């Protein structure tokens, strides 16, 4: 079994084991890539270390499904770990320039006064390049594409306008992909030669034998490549932390709330990559990043898609997963209310076999899961709404984008004419777990769906929840929101109040 991690940084091969394997990517880059003589790649900035500003944005290339190229996407280096980068190519802002000529994204930022203090700038440059990499048609970047595409990068100085100007000045048709600068062929060949097998780095036993016990031993890393390997690692290492996109794990690590002795990274497990509709059910594999779900949902599940465009940031969606969101079990996780009302099922696996758990049974209390230490979630199955279902999902947060919700709600209303034949409702941010609102549902089922009926149900829902006041909002506000969202839902079902643009 391979016992080191192999990846490339700006075209250079890095082979890593030991302490560096467990570092965040930004630490690794800024600290000299584990070598005292290497250049410290300090262009990747740290302004928050919690994934919430984008100053540390880098591009990561991974082998495309076709196997013949690398596809590049942005991630936040401050919450990505080296062990997640096996057989990837990292491009930092230092790697964008060719022969000391500014790359087009860099030049556009200079020309448009896109930088002031400059601290956020490398992140924006990488995000702009990322938009070019992801652009299908290589047409000019539309205002909306730019705004959403850059919403994972904050800037305190510029007010963004001149950064948007820079984005508009970029002509993707004339911007080279980083794949042109860094020939993928040798990297792909190297990755192929390394093979698809599992990787195990820093095995604990050898370290103990080597007498490393005084200093904290480096984190042991498992990279299973198949489901059997995954469940076996899991069974043998109940103390290992499962890691998917690390967008929760990375933040907890940086805040000192998590220091695992061992990790199992699921990203490379082939069986967890499924994203498909099977028998009217959407199946989302545990390792499928949000960005894939988002693209898929655009046509299949527009209501879900709308929520996902506001889930975290593009960088977070390139890494984070549904299963991570569900397993992290935050009461304000944006995906959970939808999966409650849709009646999703979690597929769990262990060496002993598989079992299905309906999502509502999965949560036993605040961050308490029906998940044994030897089990992993491998997929989530979700029935798709029938024609007569009105699905409405709401995320209310202080700031529109890149914000955690104050309150989330999901409405799944089965209509027969004017009659509400079925209703499944859920709310998050109103208690220790996401909850269904059974009494409000009851008040709706079998009655005509009128505004008054929704108002009554909203008032009932208010009685069913016990929100607290915290940094994101007061309890009264949350109560009022939940009540009001019933009326809002009714108006939207009726096609009222869906605004497009301003009067100006």
């Amino acid at each position: 079994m391979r016992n080191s991690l192999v990846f490339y940084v700006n075209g250079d091969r890095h082979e890593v084991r030991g302490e560096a394997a467990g570092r965040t990517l930004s630490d690794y880059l800024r600290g000299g890539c584990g070598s005292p003589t290497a250049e410290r790649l300090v262009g990747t900035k740290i302004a928050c270390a919690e994934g919430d500003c984008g100053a540390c944005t880098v591009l990561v290339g991974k082998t495309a499904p076709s196997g013949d190229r690398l596809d590049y996407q942005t991630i936040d280096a401050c919450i990505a770990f080296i062990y997640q980068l096996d057989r990837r190519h990292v491009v930092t802002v230092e790697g964008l320039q060719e022969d000391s000529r500014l790359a087009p994204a860099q030049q556009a930022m200079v020309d448009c006064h896109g930088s002031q203090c400059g601290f956020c700038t490398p992140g924006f440059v990488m995000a702009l390049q990322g938009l070019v990499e992801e652009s299908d048609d290589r047409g000019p970047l539309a205002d909306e594409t730019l705004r959403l595409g850059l919403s994972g990068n904050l800037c305190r100085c510029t007010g963004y306008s001149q950064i948007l100007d820079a984005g508009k000045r970029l002509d993707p048709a004339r911007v080279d992909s980083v794949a042109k600068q860094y020939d993928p062929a040798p990297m792909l060949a190297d990755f192929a030669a390394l093979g698809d097998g599992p990787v195990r780095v820093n095995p604990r036993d050898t370290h103990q034998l080597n007498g490393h016990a005084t200093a904290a031993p480096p984190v042991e890393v498992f990279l299973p490549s198949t489901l059997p390997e995954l469940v076996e690692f899991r069974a043998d290492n109940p103390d290992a932390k499962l890691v998917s996109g690390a967008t929760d794990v990375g933040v907890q690590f940086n805040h000192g709330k998590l220091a695992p002795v061992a990790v199992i990274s699921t990203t490379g497990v082939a069986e967890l990559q499924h994203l498909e509709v099977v028998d009217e059910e959407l199946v989302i594999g545990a390792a499928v990043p949000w960005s894939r779900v988002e693209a898929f949902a655009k046509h299949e599940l527009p209501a879900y898609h709308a929520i996902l465009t506001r889930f975290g940031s593009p960088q977070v969606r390139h890494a984070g997963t549904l299963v991570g969101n569900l397993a992290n079990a935050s009461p304000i996780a944006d995906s959970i209310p939808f999966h409650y009302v849709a009646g999703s099922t979690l597929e769990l696996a262990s060496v002993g076999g598989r079992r299905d758990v309906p999502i509502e049974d999965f949560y036993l209390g605040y961050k308490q899961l029906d998940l044994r230490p030897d089990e992993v979630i491998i997929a989530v199955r979700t029935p798709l709404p029938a024609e007569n279902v009105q699905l409405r999902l709401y995320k209310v947060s202080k700031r529109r984008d890149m914000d955690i919700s104050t309150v989330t709600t999901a409405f799944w209303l089965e209509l027969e004419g004017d009659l509400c034949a079925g209703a499944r409702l859920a709310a998050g941010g109103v208690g220790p777990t996401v909850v269904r609102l059974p009494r409000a549902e009851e008040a709706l089922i079998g009655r005509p769906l009128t505004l008054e009926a929704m108002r009554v149900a909203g008032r009932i829902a208010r009685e069913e929840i016990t929100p607290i006041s915290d940094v994101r909002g007061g309890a009264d506000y949350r109560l009022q929101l939940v009540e009001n969202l019933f009326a809002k839902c009714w108006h939207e079902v009726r096609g009222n109040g869906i605004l497009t643009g301003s009067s100006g």
Partner: protein
Amino acid sequence: MASVGQSLPHDSATGHVTGAARYIDDLPRLDRELYVDFAGSPVAAGRIRSIDLTAARAVPGVVCLLTYDHLGGPNHFGPIIPDEAFLAEEEVVYVGQPIVVIAAETPAAALRARQLIVVDIEERKPVLSIDDALAAKSFIGPERRMMTPGAESDADFEAAFRSAPHTLAGRFVSGGQEQFYFETQAALSIPGEGGDVRVISSTQNTTETQAVVAEALGLGMHQVVCECQRMGGGFGGKETQSAIPAVMTALVVKQTGRPARLVLRRGDDMRITGKRHPYQTDYRVAFAADGRLIAAQMAYYSNGGAFADLSTSVMERTMLHADNAYHVPMLRVTGQVCRTNLPPNTAFRGFGGPQGVAVIESLLEDIAQVVGRDPFDVRRLNLYRDGDPARSVTHYGQIVRDHVLDETFDRLAASSNYRHRVNAVTEFNTTSITHVRGIALTAIKFGISFTTKFLNQANALVNVYTDGTVQVSTGGTEMGQGLYTKIQQLVADEFGLPPSRVRMMATSTEKSNNTSPTAASAGTDLNGAAALVACGQIIERMRDYAAGLFASTERGLVAAPEHVVIDDGAVWDDRDPSHRIEFGEFCAMARRERVDLGARGFYATPGVDYNRETGCGNPFFYYTTGAAIAEVTIDRFTGELTFDRADVLMDIGRSINPGVDRGQVIGGFIQGVGWVTNEELRYNDAGHLLSTGPTTYKIPNVTDLPRVLNVDFIDNPKHQKNVRQSKAVGEPPLMLGICAWMAAKNALQSLAGDKRVELAIPATGEELLTRMTALVGQAVPDAVGTSQISGRR
């Protein structure tokens, strides 16, 4: 070609986009460098019983743990009132207040030590809010007063209120704001010889940093150098509080003789450093039937935090902006800073101005509602009128002159299609039951200069080399605002050189002594002017020397310095333009003839004079003015606000760099929008800040920008002052961001009928929904036409 007036890129733009521009944390690690951390108070108020460092000291890699008794000088700091203990002694007065400085070989060891330090504290109930402080009579400095000459008599003042057709009274509340500079507070201190220390600091204030470090270590100022190449943002937050990491690291240097660096974690930075002051203002105002102001009284209370810092000065600027752009015939203002158990609040772009401006702007909106006129018309009616002696004197006695406020209003109304859009908004509000819209204009008249007279000075060093290149350093620091770029342009033009031949050097106390902070928007005004003075001296010497060179009896030219032209990279006599000497060659020749090609320039702003005791005088050299119109849409179910459109128009004089200035205007504007919308500092009852990072503290995102954003500048031929007739631009646009809040208020007013709309800053979704719910019972009507709201219209 002259470079002043050109939109040159920022002088570090290439460094920014390639990642090559270095900030403190990016500088190479030095030999034997130590990591610095600190342990702070776990409570907001209390008395330290004991500090147990035993366990922390035992952590491998920990080099030293320092408390206040390691300071070499007195433990009393503060730019205005020295009331601040740098490291807590017996009392702790805010959460996170530094108690122990830690130095270690690795960040992990430092952090471990921090966790193991045990401070035993007898906790006291903290004073947190302004109301708490008022109840406890916990104040910083005396109450300050200012009033219009003519409003001194209580009898007259009260009579004005009694006889006025209308009066309003109430309380206005605005919250604090975190600077959220991207680069956190940071410093690297390096030992020199003989106990000297070099401090590389992310600071707006090199001189203050030098002075504070010298004091804390018991050194002479001549033993400390403070240097700053650039900051990753400052916004006022690094005017005084950049001293925290500077002193901590310098202390470690003194103790260990090793270099030491501290870059604050975001959470620590947000927890322990000061912010914009929360305010509470009790006001009353009297006005005529047409909305014309007659008299007003404002009592401002600010939450100063635990120590004075700049709070009294901030309050002064609030009071000086009580009028904003409007003439108030009788105005009385008082200001009192409250002492509380929060970190000492400090400078933030606008420096008290926003808190003053917001109040009167909000009042004008209310007045318009009472008299039934469009708020635009009421504002325009009350503007200062240039040249009208009855309507151009402020409450502190300065004449507001040479401005284009009327023209700004009129042009903005036309360019934004204001009247039409007001109708469209009204129309929308009568038909929409799910959303409500508002539109509003607010203005700014911002006084430029430090209100503390002596700070209005600067010096600069200009060195011309024998290849014709130039280095410039001034006391002004670069935090992204483009100061270096503008000075580079000014100097390049003086010597007729392309800007690429002028290089801005890191700001250092070695080159510029006794400097003022880069603040009050006056960075370019002061330092640019000083650089020009230095250039002028060199040019005079060059002309004298060149005059002799070009004098020629053959051609009948007598030596005449006034005929010497230095331009286009060359030097010549305008009577004989064919005989040119390339500038570099000329400089080399001049040196050989022992001409001094370096100079130090000094500048002091003329005419500013203000008496703090009487509250009268001319604190400002001139005013930067402007106005903005915002339109917003609010979701009536959730309070979510969408910023539809903004039109901004400003008089910034003749811009030295329109690209940079545009960036300042938009950046400041959006920062102001952040203050009034979503930037909310939440504390728990024990005084712990809950919003300690971007996850919970929401500065504007790109998607919060108005869909349509028009920014333009208005010519003002009357403005003939200041360096190249430019105007300061850093702070004023921030206050135009208030227009977004005003538009929200305007929207709520359309739901309120005759009721007054109470709305605090920031108008978060929670604030908006709560107010809407209170206004109309249930926030949302059942259907068009049947609702109580539309029924009332």
